[in-house]
């Protein structure tokens, strides 16, 4: 399914995205001048519909801009039945001073780590929405939810009849774009509007091409949910600021 037909998976974030359209540009400016800002580089929910075939994604491995073709990612997933091995959950060495239970998100590499004792971590592959890039910061898990309700933002309800029928909230379930679990990221006691959640688009793991925040395989978000406590620190690392062009 082309991305622009997908409902945006998180109402609070989507509201933030709308407000964040201008911040998208100011975010790039700040990053260019070298200051990472949390909640910068936010892509407006409304503009998800405007994504076009000229979108390119920067691949940090090859240091090349590559044409984004969602169908290619879908085909890969259908052929292999899973995402590339690098993005499958595994235990890795992770030497850090951060305490076990801390979450580290490395958007460049499309990895999310949960620190374990003895310099180890669980590493998950992640898909990162455009709004997930361009900010760095330290937040915390303010709350967790099983089978979270997804409520489309008002602007999506207005423009998308499919979303409109869920204006009052889409119950949790296999078709819910948040997937089976969600971790809500807070700054202190305040909702940051960012979430870590599951996905109905497993082919998007390892890419930063989909709408949504930080998404994991549904099996992985369930695993992560069990490992991370409310109050856990979440460190979002610095990363390239302009990972898209043509959008």
């Amino acid at each position, binding site marked *: 399914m082309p991305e622009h037909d997908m409902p945006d998976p998180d109402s609070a974030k989507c509201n933030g995205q709308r407000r964040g359209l201008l911040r998208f540009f100011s975010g790039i400016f*700040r*990053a*260019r001048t*070298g*200051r*990472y*800002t*949390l*909640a*910068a580089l936010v892509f407006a929910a409304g503009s998800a519909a405007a994504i076009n075939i000229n979108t390119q994604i*920067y691949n*940090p491995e090859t*240091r*090349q*801009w590559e044409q984004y073709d969602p169908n290619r990612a879908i085909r890969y997933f259908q052929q292999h039945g899973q995402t590339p091995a690098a993005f499958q959950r595994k235990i*890795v*060495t*992770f*030497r*850090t*001073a*951060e*305490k076990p239970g801390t979450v*580290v998100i*490395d958007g*460049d*590499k499309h*990895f999310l*780590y949960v620190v374990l004792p003895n310099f180890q*971590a669980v*590493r998950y592959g992640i898909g990162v929405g455009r709004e997930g890039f361009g900010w*760095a*910061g*330290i*937040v*915390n898990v303010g709350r967790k939810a099983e089978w979270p309700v997804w409520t489309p933002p008002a602007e999506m309800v207005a423009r998308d009849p499919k979303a409109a029928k869920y204006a009052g909230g889409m119950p949790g379930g296999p078709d819910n774009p948040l997937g089976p679990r969600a971790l809500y990221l807070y*700054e*202190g006691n*305040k909702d*940051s509007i960012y979430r870590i959640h599951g996905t109905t688009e497993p082919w998007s793991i390892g890419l930063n091409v989909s709408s949504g925040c930080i998404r994991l395989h549904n099996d992985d978000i369930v695993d992560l949910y069990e490992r991370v406590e409310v109050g856990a*620190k979440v*460190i*979002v*690392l*610095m*990363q*390239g*600021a*302009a*990972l898209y062009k043509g959008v």
Partner: protein
Amino acid sequence: MGGHEIHELAPMNKLTVPFFALGLLVTGATATRAADVVIGVPDWSSATVTAHVLKALLKTEFGLEAGLEFGTNEAIFAAMDAGTEDIHPEVWLPNHSSLNAEYVLRRKSVVMSPKGVPARQGICLTKATQDAYDIVSVNDLTDPDKAAVFDTDGNGKGEIWIGAEDWSSTKVEKIRAKSYGYDQTMDLLEAPEAIAVTAIDAAIAGDKPLVFYCYEPHHTFELHDIVFLDEPPYDPRKWTVVMPDDDPDWLEKSSAGVAWPPSFFHINYSSKLANERPDVAAFLSAIRLDVDTVSEMTYALIVERRDPEEFSAQWMADNADRIAAWRKAANH
């Protein structure tokens, strides 16, 4: 880390962000009203750790209850000037020279202990990066091909973390980048240390090239194989550093295309404390720390997350002779 005049997490724009592990060490230890002595605690790891050890020393040696008060360097100096705080555990030179000039030399409300711990600051990268890409000198960062090794956003320029936005050292690193010329090949990033340090952890785990401002002692050197990039030695004739507070054209008027001058950090304390408790002041001036000691303490408290009180008690027991020698020196 040297010289970090942090006010708050300004780089984070709308959201303020808690400081990293250090904050955990300070949390719960800030009940200062009932304290006999107040130690100001800046945000970097070694200063936080030394603050805890000083707190324990003041208790056992003098029976004083010390409170820990988190704050910026400017705030701690101002509080010592006002008499509401008593000790800064780790004042870096040359980074805090201007604060020393104001409060130690001009106002004479703060005293700098005479013996500093030698320290080092510069540009570091992971050893794996150095080996893979043959990047050994700061001048290599001016090579566009080598700088591009650190490019994560596709603009052809690498990225380098130069410190937190409000650190004085960050201003100097901007000057150095301009003077060496890698401001043309690299994007200079500012962010809180907590993020930068964790980025090193992730770069090692993910085999990703990384280059960054660094200072020693720091627990990251104990965790990872990190190396300094070579630089021409410090030359005072090539070190012209004008700070933004002194001149709006500070960057244009500055030049520093050489290594940092030899750096030291000292314990500072208020003149008020020196007047009221000259025995305590003399003891603070007699303390002799060194890089290995600070590194050991930092690793224990930051990486191993030892309980500060438990660790301090153990450390004092293990170093009883050393502490006795400080007491003896203070009494002469």
